[in-house]
């Protein structure tokens, strides 16, 4: 699924990475625990309720290209700048992590392979 379609489905606000909306995502990880993301996730996208620079760093280490923050949480300017520099998409959605995951699953996206 294109990142642009994900943005529409989650009714998410795009914070950076406009040029990556045509990139395809197949696997998604939903977690607030970064060590879990580092341990098990083979995902290309992360849905999280956690807001701090280590979320961007974790995504960077895992080659995750797109992060969606749930419950309308907003990263600060430093986090957005770091993500932009690492060529990532950041989005913020009003939906909870549970709902976001459910909607994306319903539309064919999956967790780890």
């Amino acid at each position, binding site marked *: 699924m294109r990142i642009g379609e994900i943005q529409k489905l989650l009714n998410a606000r795009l914070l950076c990475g406009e040029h990556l909306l045509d990139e395809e995502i197949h696997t998604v990880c939903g977690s607030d625990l970064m060590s879990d993301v580092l341990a098990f996730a083979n995902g290309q996208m992360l849905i999280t309720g956690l807001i*701090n620079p*280590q979320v961007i760093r974790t995504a960077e280490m*895992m080659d995750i290209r797109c992060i969606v923050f749930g419950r309308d949480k907003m990263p600060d300017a430093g986090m957005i700048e770091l993500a932009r520099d690492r060529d990532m998409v950041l989005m913020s959605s009003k939906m909870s992590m549970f709902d976001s995951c459910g909607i994306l699953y319903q539309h064919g996206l999956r967790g780890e392979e």
Partner: protein
Amino acid sequence: MPDAIRMRFDVDGDDFAGAGVASSEVKRALKKLGMPPDLVKRTAICMYEGEINMVIHANGGVAMAAIRPDRVEIELCDRGPGIADVELAMQEGYSTASEQARNLGFGAGMGLPNMKRYADEMTIDSRPGEGTTVRMVIRAR
């Protein structure tokens, strides 16, 4: 490529938010050198977990990486409190991390097990009261 490309970083123990800079630099260097993607990712994970540990538990330290044609060697040295029981620390779920570390999404007792999972070799040399040195080797597969 020469015998080894060596990188050395001072990891600041007071900068929770800034942790990960050394791992990021090493990952970028490996990518630039055209190392296999799987090696790059495993190295990044091992070093990042180690770097986070140094900040969370040991007030920082020194992180070093030696990049060789077929492998990466990582050495993380700190003068923190040391690990009293290494075997216990290696168990998934065991953690002595602070509330602050947990708030950042770490401290769930996954760091050392993660490092062991992704590294081909790992040794922990720790003396309570003196510090800890973690050495890891990640090989191209």
